[in-house]
């Protein structure tokens, strides 16, 4: 762990109990996230990929501590240690009231720009809300800051008085970005920020986010399922499968020399705009993703893994640093 570390996630697990029967007894557990480790440095972009339902979004929401709100009985294990200056704050163990004063340091950009802005508030009200909560700015200073932020994200400051429904999807997402940047956070969790947008708009928004990352010196946890987007912007890539982390390492290493069989399959599915490589081998996985209610024993991926062996069912593979800064959860490819 270097001095530059912003957040260190150790053995994070998020389990949702499932209740059933007459007396609402606990009948099962959804292991949405099952013990993952990674860290994000300052000014770093970490891309997190995986198919639907693998726990990417849950990791993001655990990292800003808002899971308990929707599911009060969620069980969060492990630790999410933020290094704010000299302070080390563990978001996994703090209650939501204790976490409140650190909220300005970690912000989130949401997937759906239509649902993430309150339809009853003007853009100015939306963006100035974090300012009201975390700064002592006067109304005038807030209005100036809102105008400045709108300008930064490529909107006109005059649009501050409008309501979200008067904007297009891309513009709304820009408002969401401005809101996340309002308090100068250290980390922004981007939960598939472009997947709800048109492809042409996606590029604009991603370029904007890259520019702003430079300017605001902020780290991103960029959750997506589009590997080519993630490769384009990330310093590091984390690949998740069914609540486990399959592979984590530098973007170039993971993208160009994937080691885990799941990463290989995922990467072979990325469409390439290069006709000379159209004959590359496509790894097609058999079967469906197992349910997180009843995960396979040992390695969760073994049911679909092309190189699985009987030993894979016995114990969970160790998440091991197989090369420098390149962690892989598969002993068979070592």
């Amino acid at each position: 762990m270097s001095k530059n570390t912003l957040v260190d996630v150790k053995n994070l697990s998020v389990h949702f109990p499932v209740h059933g029967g007459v007396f609402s007894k606990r009948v099962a557990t959804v292991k949405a996230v099952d013990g993952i480790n990674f860290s994000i440095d300052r000014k770093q972009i970490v891309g997190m990929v995986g198919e639907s339902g693998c726990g990417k979004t849950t990791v993001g929401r655990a990292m800003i501590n808002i899971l308990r709100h929707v599911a009060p009985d969620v069980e969060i294990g492990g630790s999410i240690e933020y290094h704010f200056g000299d302070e080390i704050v563990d978001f996994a163990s703090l209650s939501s009231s204790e976490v409140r004063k650190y909220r300005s340091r970690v912000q989130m950009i949401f997937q759906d720009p239509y649902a993430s802005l309150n339809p009853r508030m003007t853009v100015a009200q939306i963006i100035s809300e974090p300012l009201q909560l975390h700064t002592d700015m006067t109304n005038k200073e807030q209005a100036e800051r809102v105008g400045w932020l709108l300008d930064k994200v490529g909107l006109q400051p005059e649009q501050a008085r409008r309501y979200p429904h008067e904007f297009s999807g891309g513009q709304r997402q820009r408002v969401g970005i401005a809101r996340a940047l309002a308090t100068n956070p250290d980390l922004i969790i981007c939960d598939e920020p472009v997947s709800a947008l048109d492809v042409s708009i996606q590029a604009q928004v991603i370029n904007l986010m890259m520019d702003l990352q430079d300017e605001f010196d902020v780290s991103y946890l960029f959750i997506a399922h589009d590997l080519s987007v993630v490769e384009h912007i990330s310093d590091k890539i984390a690949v998740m499968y069914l609540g486990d982390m399959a592979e984590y390492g530098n973007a170039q290493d993971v993208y160009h020399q994937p080691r885990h069989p799941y990463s290989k399959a995922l990467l072979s599915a990325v469409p390439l705009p290069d006709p000379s490589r159209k004959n590359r081998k496509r790894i097609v996985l058999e079967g469906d993703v197992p349910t997180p209610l009843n995960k396979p024993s040992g390695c969760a991926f073994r049911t679909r893994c092309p190189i699985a062996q009987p030993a894979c069912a016995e114990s969970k593979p160790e998440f091991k640093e197989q090369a420098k800064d390149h962690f892989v959860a598969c002993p068979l490819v070592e």
Partner: protein
Amino acid sequence: MPEQQEISLSILKKRWLKFKTLKRGYYSFVLLVILYILSWFLPLLVNNRALILSYEGEMYFPVVSGYYAGSEFGQDVPGETIYRQLQATWETEDSDNWMIMPVYPYSPYEDITVTGNKMYDPPSSTHWLGTDNTGRDVFSRLCYAFNISISFALVLTILNYFIGVLIGGSMGYFGGKFDLFFQRIIEIWSSLPMLFVIIIISSIIRPSFFLLIFIYTIVNWIGMTYLMRAEFYREKSKDYVAAALSMGQTNFKVMFKHILPNAMVPIITFFPFAVVGGISALVSLDYLGFGMPPPTPSWGQMLDVGLQNITKAWMVFAPISALFSTLIMVVFIGEAVREAFDPKVYSRLR
């Protein structure tokens, strides 16, 4: 004009503008609001005490200051001055004393004990809607009862909604054990036979305006909790709530600043119908004799007396038509509100 296009309207503002285009509901709303505001100034408009009175060079304001014995103004009557009589006397005597009476100089409380009042007086230019079985002026009582009915319905509805939003909203928002607990309480509570409870309570304690509201509220707050629970439950899973929480907003602020404005549709659309319910509730209680204590003017009591004297048409006709027109105006408002909240542009009701 480009400047006008720049103005952004909130959803509620747009709905208000649409409501204004629905003439029947809008004019009912305006009329009812004006009548209700006027009804607070009824003592200045419909009363048996003089507004201003000048007696031997001194000014008196009986409407404001209240009781003056007849002897103070040289009138030979026992008890309070009868201003109408006094005015007539002064006019015939052509004296320097003068007074200004309200537009309609009859009080809802003065009965046959006051000289000049007769029982079952049919409608005339003096008593516009006649008098009832105790000689009280029907028109005057009708006006005062309007104020009481609307006030009762409004206070009752607002109180019910306040409690319903608070409890229902918390149930939907917090969920879990809190929700489960209150759901069971509501299930038990809603099975109370409300009419009997009110009859029993009002036969023990003498009911008053606020006691009746209190009793009704005990049972009626439940209706709104169902709707609010569903609304808050739906809204809380939306991302803007997660955004507000991730910003560090308190639960209270999230509930009432973020979710409530998005959960206003059932509150506003049901409001006029709840007012209708409140008015009818008071009328039926008064009709049965368990409502406001006599001699409080009330439509229910007037209806009761009217039906006992069914041959005196004005005593039945007056409260029924007042009740009917008030209720139908509120229903028009309710329909227009529903229409204004309808996202489809062309529907019915034009």
